């Protein structure tokens, strides 16, 4: 290299021994730089996901013993309302009758409660349209009516009319005992 001309904007791609090795090193270094940025990006993105304390509150237990038939209690679960409804036989009959109607999101009432416990209906109280909280006892199907854009749900929480595309969601839950459920 002693004969190299001093300075004069030398072209890095001129001369040189093995072009393959030269290119490989630059590509490897560039790829490693990209890898480092991507690797660091993940922690910076993941920090916005729910933190440990938020996740810890993601399951709750609800005591059913104080709910009377025909009543609904609302508890806060994951920052959203959870409807716990003790249905009357009339409501259940209406819901089962609705199984054969022309449903937008077809589902039987059977599939929306735990086996042998049709009286307990557990729903996430969030309208599947744009997230408002529907009110019970309004609307023509005896179930819920969303005040925002008029979505109507029946006594099984299924969408019957209005802009919402889906039935009210049934969360994952199970009966810890006859009078207690665990949601989440």
């Amino acid at each position, binding site marked *: 290299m002693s004969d190299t001309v001093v*300075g004069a904007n030398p072209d890095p791609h001129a001369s040189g021994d093995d072009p393959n090795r030269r290119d490989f090193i630059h590509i490897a270094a560039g790829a490693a730089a990209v890898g480092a940025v991507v690797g660091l990006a993940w*922690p*910076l993105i993941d*920090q916005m*996901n729910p933190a*440990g*304390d938020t996740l810890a509150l993601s399951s709750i237990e609800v005591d059913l013993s104080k709910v009377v038939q025909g009543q609904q209690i609302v508890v806060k679960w994951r920052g959203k309302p959870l409807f716990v409804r003790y249905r009357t036989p009339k409501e259940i009959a209406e819901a089962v009758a609705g199984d054969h109607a022309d449903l937008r999101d077809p589902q039987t009432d059977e599939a929306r409660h735990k086996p042998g416990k049709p009286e307990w209906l557990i729903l996430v109280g969030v309208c599947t349209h744009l997230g408002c909280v529907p009110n019970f006892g309004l609307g023509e199907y005896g179930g819920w009516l969303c005040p925002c854009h008029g979505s109507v749900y029946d006594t099984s929480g299924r969408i019957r009319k209005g802009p919402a595309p889906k039935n009210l969601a049934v969360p994952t839950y199970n009966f810890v005992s006859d009078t207690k459920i665990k949601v989440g």
Partner: protein
Amino acid sequence: MSGHSTYEPKTGFERWLDVRLPIIRMTYDTALNFPTPKNLNYWWTFGGILALCLGIQIVTGVILAMHYVPQVDMAFNSVERIMRDVNYGWLIRYMHANGASMFFIAVYIHMFRGLYYGSYKAPREVLWILGCIIYLLMMATAFMGYVLPWGQMSFHGAVVITNLLGALPVVGNAITTWLWGGFAVDDPTLNRFFSLHYLLPFVIAGVVALHIWALHVPGNNNPTGVNVKSEADTVPFHPYYTVKDGFAISVFLLMFGVFVFWMPNALGHTDNYIPANPLVTPQHIVPEWYFLPFYAILRAVPNKLGGVLLMFGAIAVLFVLPWIDTSKVRSMRYRPTIRLYFFIFILTCLVLGFCGAHEPADKVIPGVTTFTLGDYDLNTMVWLSRIAALYYFAYFLVITPLVGLTETPLPVPDSISEPVLSHPASGPIGTAAASKKG
């Protein structure tokens, strides 16, 4: 931003954009093709490192602000929640806390490099002053950031530093009350410090843009201090300095990583893990290490106002340095006399930092009681810091102008391409040496 542009749009889109917003041209001229002296050594990589430090602090800081609560009862716990519950919160917070120290390490090296190679001299005075402004803003930002975790050191550090302004005659008390938003450091203080701590980094980023602009007008200084004479003296910034800066940055990140991953609390203070208690002051109030030299100067003066003025004077003197220096030669490579004084100056700054970390009455050499002058015990930190502070100011105000007038510099090379001719470190002078070195 200076000189003519050599950018030629290649694609149709580039030509279309170039007429409307010549952003690719600007990037090309300032970051890719910018002619850069080819003899820059590793000390010059700290500019790029500092840009990275600022980027890291802003990104991690914006993230921390998503989780932090600027309220006296919750600030400490919200920081601990980041450490314990937020996904990778420990990483982001430790990067931010240690990143501040890394930022200051880099900025001090960057400043000493500028001093050694005369980068502040004409025509780069504005560049230097902008750098001094960035440094001041960094200190303000770092100080307010240190208050936010609301530990014992945060709180009492804030008390001590804000009380400095109380030294000002007549308006002092009014200013501290205004700064606190109350009668002591409290919730309003924490809130406004948080707000300003979030704001100032973006101000810094703005001044950094000006700093780079001012750099690109005269171009880089270089280790010889000789102006660029021809194209033979330069290489395009990319790929030559992108890869060199990149390598330096990755080595710097390795050091950063040692602190973040393996000794994250080594540069902090244990007392800051005790929640702030306005009723009890910790045994030893010590600022973060990067403030220690100034803290030592402050305590070297037995008068409150005098100490504050001298401390600010230590920074103010940097602003006027370009006009204090009388030497026509930029680089200390060719100024053996001032070079010696400069190394003593670096040592002085370290000694001041050492004094700042100790109590004023602590002995310098333990157990020795013989160095007394009348009633004064000279073997104490306060006297050591007095001597060091004296040298600090003498270096700028006396030594720099006098040596510039009286010294005989070594022969300066005609151009960057021929520096070996008179490099003091080289052996026998030979013309062949220049081209043999590869």
